[in-house]
């Protein structure tokens, strides 16, 4: 145990470990805040879909030899998020079908482009690290961490500011619209925030595992808590703690960061599931 702590304090002296912790915790916080809304709106897989879109965008950026691929990826992902969420609950193509179409479509196109046009020598490794996040969170530089902090603050502030509106729109879109809430505008804001989070989170867990970050904390919280506010708070706390634990374990044990965080999230979900079943839920 002491050996582990010593090893930990040694690692914490390295800036890259501290950067990883800061970025990881912030991304986990942001994704869990919106996770509750997304799960309840039946858009659990939007993270998956959009991250595949981001993967496709990354492939395009790679082919164009862009050094700063972030703006392009962000814009393409935002456009797709808006297309999926714009229609809300009254879409012609159901939400899940639209997500599935975009998801597999852009994954296929992305890989096709990578494979056909990439100048890198090791295409398979590139693709693999984009999909699973590999260890790229441990290679973050200071500017990237600052960007991450700024975006997280913006996302969290937007969430707090629109909390009541998001609740109304999520619970009953028709009622909200009938009583004069601009549901389209809030769906748009939601879409943009999600796109930002997805692009941020790709660094952390890679595009295949982002959904886990979005849905697990929300699902865990919903097992035990029974009001929207307590579910949201619990999900944020769970997500942050899991990310923290996941990154530390990954650093100590040398496991891949993304999948370790998701594994911790799964264990916590199991615990909450058991607690929820035993107690029948807590009334808060």
């Amino acid at each position, binding site marked *: 145990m002491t050996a582990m702590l010593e090893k930990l304090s040694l690692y914490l002296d390295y800036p890259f470990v501290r950067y990883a912790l800061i970025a990881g915790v912030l991304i986990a916080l942001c994704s869990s805040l919106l996770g509750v809304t997304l799960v309840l709106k039946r858009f659990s897989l939007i993270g998956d879909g959009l991250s595949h879109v981001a993967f496709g965008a990354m492939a395009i950026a790679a082919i164009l030899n862009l050094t700063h691929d972030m703006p392009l990826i962000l814009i393409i992902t935002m456009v797709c998020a808006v297309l999926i969420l714009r229609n809300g609950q009254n879409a012609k193509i159901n939400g899940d079908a639209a997500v599935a179409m975009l998801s597999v479509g852009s994954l296929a196109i992305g890989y096709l482009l990578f494979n056909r046009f990439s100048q890198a020598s090791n295409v398979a490794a590139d693709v693999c690290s984009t999909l699973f996040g590999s260890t790229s969170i441990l290679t973050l530089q200071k500017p990237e961490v600052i960007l991450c902090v700024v975006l997280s603050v913006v996302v969290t502030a937007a969430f707090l500011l*629109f909390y009541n509106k998001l609740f109304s729109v999520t*619970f*009953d879109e028709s009622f909200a619209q009938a*009583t004069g*809430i601009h549901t389209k505008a809030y769906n748009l804001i939601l879409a943009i925030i999600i796109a930002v989070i997805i692009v941020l989170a790709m660094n952390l867990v890679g595009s295949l595992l982002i959904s886990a970050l979005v849905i697990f904390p929300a699902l865990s919280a*919903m097992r035990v808590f*029974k009001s929207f506010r307590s579910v949201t708070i619990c999900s944020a706390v769970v997500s942050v703690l899991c990310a923290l634990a996941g990154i530390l374990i990954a650093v100590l044990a040398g496991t891949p960061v993304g999948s370790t965080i998701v594994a911790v999230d799964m264990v916590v979900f199991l615990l909450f599931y058991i607690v929820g079943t035993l107690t029948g839920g807590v009334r808060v």
Partner: protein
Amino acid sequence: MSVKRGKKAIGRMALITCENLSLGYEGREILSGLHFSVNAGDYLCIVGENGSGKSTLMRTILGLQPPLRGDVNIGDGLRSTEIGYLPQQTVVQKDFPASVWEIVLSGCQGKCGARPFYRREEKELAQRMLHRLGLSDQKRRCYRELSGGQQQRVLLARALCATGKVILMDEPVSGLDPMVSAELYQRIRGLNQKDGVTVIMISHDIAAAVKDASHILHIGSPVFFGTKEDYLASPLGQNYISEGGVRP
């Protein structure tokens, strides 16, 4: 082709006037040439076969979808956002983690505009509506754990937070047992008679409709609109009632 909002109706002062209204989805007409008006204090029941366009009419009045032709005029000082709505439950709501308080308070959201948080008056209003519908004890409970009748009362309280003027209800008693239905009807009657809330209700339950309503709109062919007394005297009304209405 437009929904005129905030303008006064031509002729007498009605809250809601529909003129030569045609309804449908994507150009496919399901109902045409609809004329009717609702005055303050009315209790209008909308009856008709399944698929005749009752819910579409309600969505059009609420401004959730545009009419194919004709106008919905909202008048007499009523704003389009002052129409409360008691929708049919959606799948999303079945396992939604929200307390009764959060849901009722969300009825005030329309009053907030761009303001992010609720004012004290709005919280007090929500508290009064909880009390009025006998939900004060359930305030902290989870919506999904309530009985069907309690859930409807929560949604009714929410609608009353949005407005005390007009409430549109889409089959409020569907899925409720007879005792609970009777209790809910009684509350709605109380709102209409004591508090002067104008009620527009879609109903499959023709017996209850003719008991409480002041006006009936029968959608189908032919369309009937008039007072309950006229409806009961008409061949259409007699025929429909003898069949016992349409069971959902």
